């Protein structure tokens, strides 16, 4: 082995890489927000009285969950301009992340809504709680608690998926790393370093979500 590791290009590029972490956060947050909106909307539409609407939601979920994100982002990247939307790669990436995460969110949120027994709602009403209180205390909080672990691990996954958005050169960590790599040829050093960045990002997210669970959702069930 006569290869010498050289981290100089990485150290010189460190400010750019750290700034790019913010780009990754922006993509992840935008994607999560859109995913939640699509998730809630999808769950409501999935119970629609119109059969074609219900089918459309189911087809959307199956289609997105059974095709690779890379193909989805390419498709969206080329489809949006045809639909009259000329966007930069970064907003395009947020839309793709939101659509992908949304399909998973629909399934997760649906599971949470179904986890609330009907008798519990009726019991709340019988105890004289008004509808808002029943929704807030009896439906929303237990449902959130039920879906929180799977929703947040989906969010961590979505954050890691942002690295694929480098394929359409959205502004985030992996694309900036690729720029440094092409000018320095220090591939292993560059990608090894940002792998550690990603590890820290996902670890911080998991700790954060774990803390929320401990504070708000750890009450006895029975």
């Amino acid at each position: 082995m006569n290869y010498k590791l050289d981290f100089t290009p990485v150290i010189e590029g460190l400010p750019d890489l750290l700034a790019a972490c913010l780009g990754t956060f922006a993509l992840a947050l935008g994607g999560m927000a859109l995913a939640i909106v699509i998730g809630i909307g999808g769950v409501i539409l999935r119970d629609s009285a119109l059969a074609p609407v219900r089918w459309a939601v189911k087809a959307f979920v199956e289609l997105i969950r059974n095709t690779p994100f890379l193909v989805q982002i390419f498709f969206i990247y080329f489809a949006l301009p045809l639909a009259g939307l000329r966007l930069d790669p970064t907003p395009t990436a947020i839309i793709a992340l939101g659509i992908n995460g949304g399909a998973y969110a629909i399934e997760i949120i649906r599971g949470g809504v179904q986890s609330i027994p009907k008798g519990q709602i009726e019991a709340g009403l019988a105890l004289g709680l008004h509808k808002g209180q029943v929704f807030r205390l009896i439906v929303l909080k237990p449902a959130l608690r039920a879906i929180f672990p799977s929703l947040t691990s989906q969010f961590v996954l979505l954050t890691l998926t942002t690295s694929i958005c480098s394929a359409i050169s959205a502004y985030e960590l992996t694309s900036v790393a690729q720029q440094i790599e092409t000018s320095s040829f220090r591939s292993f050093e560059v990608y090894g370093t940002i792998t550690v960045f990603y590890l820290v990002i996902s670890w911080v997210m998991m700790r954060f979500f774990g803390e929320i669970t401990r504070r708000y959702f750890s009450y006895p069930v029975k």
Partner: protein
Amino acid sequence: MGEAEFLFLLTGLKWTVLLSLVGFVGGGFFGLAVALMRTSGIKPLERGTSAYIALFQGTPLLMQLFVVYYGLALIGLRLDAWIAVAIGFTLHASAYLGEIWRGSIEAVPKGQTEAAKALSLHYASRMKDVVLPQAIRISLPATIGFLVQLIKGTSLAAIVGFTELTRAGNIVSNQIFKPLLVFGIVGILYFLICWPLSLYGSHLERRMAIASR
């Protein structure tokens, strides 16, 4: 899109399937080792495998491929892109399958292990004849779910430069300038492989939910 282009996509599809199979079989082999070490009761082994799993679950698959790809070249191994990528997917799959199977091994009721011990079965026989057959059944839906994830994940080999289905789509799309048509077809091809697997996985899951009621 002509016949030649479509055939080129099918060649890409063949590589996608091969890559998934190699990753799944290789990952299954090492994943079983990871799962057994993770549940061995030997502290250093448990910590080591737990860190291994956390490393793969906490980083993007794309980075894992990059690091393995360039890391192998760095230690002097001049490998074919196809071999390097296959090693990357094998490592990735071994961590995920290891974690899935750890869960299933732990889900087998403790009394089973205790009964096997009382019958003075040694570790190998206890695992092979008592625990693993039950654990495999429990793990099937999640294992199939991961297989679907792995098949979709092989698309990232395209970014490393390996010509599987997605990269074949890229090449064809650059030739005939019909990206929507090409990526639409590529997406449908993935869907045709992944959807039946997903359906089978959720079918098993429902059946087990009924059985455990």
